[in-house]
């Protein structure tokens, strides 16, 4: 009898301890947020140089729409969009860098897939670019469609990407024998393709458009019209910090929703007196939109003022640089695209 009582009490004690610990953990604000605010900068993983997405200029300033996601988070949590430490990562290194805690956001044209989301300790928070895999060939080859591909074609690509898998599915389903030549770094892929090692270069179409600008003679190459896969690219965070995940998700959503309501970096302040409550919520003039994240009420206003809305970011980084002037699917749902985010309320 006493024996059982002893067991029972120890069980109750254990449950109590577990309960206290979990509730305490829940009450705490995001650990990543706390660390970020303590350090004074957001640790962001980006590509090793992909124009339009994440690319450093000669003086080390990063620009691109992937970079802007990190800047938006920095504006929201630190008040300054420039307080970001960028870590260039290869496709192979990126997830390890994130899961090992070397970076807190991975914003590096990364495709959202089931296995990545489920398996490797990552959480995708949204999509900042809808892309698809395509092929680039030399104009002089006369190839204008993937239907002209023949047995023996050699294709240059990156390792550690969904590209490698899509390529296999594509060629196999058409019964074409091909030679995959997979490099670790994008620059090496481009150099090998440019040298004539491969007949075609395959990666996400945005990537092709961006890398084309780096070739010796961009006009000698064309991107074929076919798209062989869905590649929703977006920022990724570590699993296990739901609040941080929400901060990154809603920083991105704020940029997209701001465009929807016509709020720009220039007019954001004047929008505070708008009649539309949705707009007022987006510029911090109504509601308590930051409290749940442990942030103040102006977090979203800072994003819009310092980084701009999604349309501004796209124009600045991708359209004006001549990479992809046409927004295609990356247009707002109200304008025929598929950009549609949940309402901020």
């Amino acid at each position, binding site marked *: 009898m006493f024996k059982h009582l002893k067991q029972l009490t120890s069980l109750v004690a254990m449950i109590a301890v577990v309960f206290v610990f979990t509730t305490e953990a829940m009450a705490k604000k995001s650990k990543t947020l706390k660390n970020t605010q303590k350090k004074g900068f957001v640790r962001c993983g980006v590509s090793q140089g992909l124009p339009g997405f994440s690319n450093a200029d000669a003086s080390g300033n990063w620009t691109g729409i992937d970079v802007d996601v990190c800047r938006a988070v920095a504006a929201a949590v630190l008040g300054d969009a420039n307080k970001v430490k960028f870590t260039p990562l290869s496709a192979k290194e990126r997830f390890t860098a994130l899961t090992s805690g070397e970076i807190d956001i991975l914003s590096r044209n990364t495709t959202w897939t089931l296995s990545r989301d489920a398996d490797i300790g990552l959480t995708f928070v949204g999509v900042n670019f809808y892309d698809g895999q395509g092929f680039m060939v030399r104009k002089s080859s006369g190839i204008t469609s993937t239907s002209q591909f023949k047995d023996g074609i050699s294709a240059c690509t990156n390792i*550690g990407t969904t590209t490698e898998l899509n390529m*296999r599915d594509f060629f196999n389903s058409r019964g074409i024998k091909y030679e995959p030549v997979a490099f670790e770094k994008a620059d090496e892929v481009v150099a090998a393709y440019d040298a004539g090692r491969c007949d075609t270069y395959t990666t996400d179409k945005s990537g092709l458009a961006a890398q084309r600008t780096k070739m010796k003679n961009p006009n000698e190459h064309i991107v074929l019209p076919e798209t062989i896969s869905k590649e929703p690219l977006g920022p990724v965070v570590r699993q296990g910090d739901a609040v941080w995940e929400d901060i990154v998700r809603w920083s991105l959503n704020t940029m997209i929703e701001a465009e929807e309501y016509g709020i720009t970096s220039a007019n954001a302040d004047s929008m505070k007196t708008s009649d539309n409550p949705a707009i007022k919520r987006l510029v911090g003039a109504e509601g308590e939109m930051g409290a749940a994240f442990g942030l103040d009420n102006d977090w979203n206003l800072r994003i819009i003022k310092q980084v701009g809305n999604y349309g501004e970011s796209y124009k600045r980084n991708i359209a004006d640089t001549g990479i992809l002037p046409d927004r295609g699917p990356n247009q707002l749902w109200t304008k025929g695209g598929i950009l549609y985010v949940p309402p901020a309320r």
Partner: protein
Amino acid sequence: MNNKIKKLIPQVLTILFVVLIFGFFTINAQVNMDNRGIDFGFGFLKQEASFDMQFTLLDYDGQDSYLWAYVVALLNTLLVSFLGIIFCTILGVIIGVARLSQNFLIRNSAAWYVEFFRNIPLLLQIFFWYYAALRALPLPETAEPWFGVTYMTIKGYYIPSMIWENFNVFLSCLIAAIVSIIFIRIYAKKLQEREGKQLPIFYISIGLLIILPLLSFLIGGVKLDFELPVLKQLAQTSFIFEGGIALPPELIALVVALSLYTSTFVAECVRAGIQGISKGQKEAAASVGLNPNQILKLVIMPQALRIIIPPTTNQYLNLTKNSSLAAAIAYPDLVLVFAGTALMQTGKAIEIVGITMLTYLTISLLIAALMNWYNKKIEIKEK
């Protein structure tokens, strides 16, 4: 007793320390992986790999498992290491001997070769051979044949493949030739010990190696055909060669870079070995009437090898480990395929990096064991 304990305490402490460190890292990794929802396990090895490889020795398809991808990639690593070791040894011995040549030009060019190739970082050399030398190569459609039937192009080196009929007969003839050569050598040695007679073993061996396989063609019904590479058009300006064997430029660049680099170290080992034998040995050998060839073969080399083998083993190990730089130029070796693509697709970083490290360790230990065995064999045996 007291003394014993005194000796024991530091050892126990050291072991305890090592165990604690390992324990700390294991627990730390476990806690972190638990926090991030990462499972540990090797079940992924059975899953379908679903990526293709450019160059494989055995049949491999994306439908095969990660385990098979690992085996195939490992073979690619071993192939590069094997070819590299062969070429760097041949080149190293030649250069090493050349450094001791009486001829001013030979001696100095060998010295320059060594200084040049061993003082440029290996990765840079690989890049040079792959990117710079590759760009200088012609496209398939403009390639001039080498030796009439092989083509060196930017997409690879195309050579004819051999198509055998009754290959077994040919193979058994070849084995028979080798076995008989071994027996003749043993007999010749005995003959020399007993009667002092010398057989022309070298010529007999060469003769056997040529005549027996030749007989298999004449009587055994063995036939050999060659499949030549033929130019094929893929698109207006895009060509490849079909048929024959295609050696990818990645493999060639890697083997060339590894052999040239490592051969400089082997050359220095060889030179050191030969110089380590005192002049008196040579003079003594000459005074008993051996000719220069015999002096090198019977007196100098057997002694020099004892000095050469241990440091050369190190170079072989280095070459094998350096072959992992293949990842930089898309040669599908263990690091690129397994620790690269497979790691990315599965996310099993700890498992895959662990397996890869263990694999390299095993390869290195095997090579070291083999060389140690050889070293033991040629050691001075006290009689």
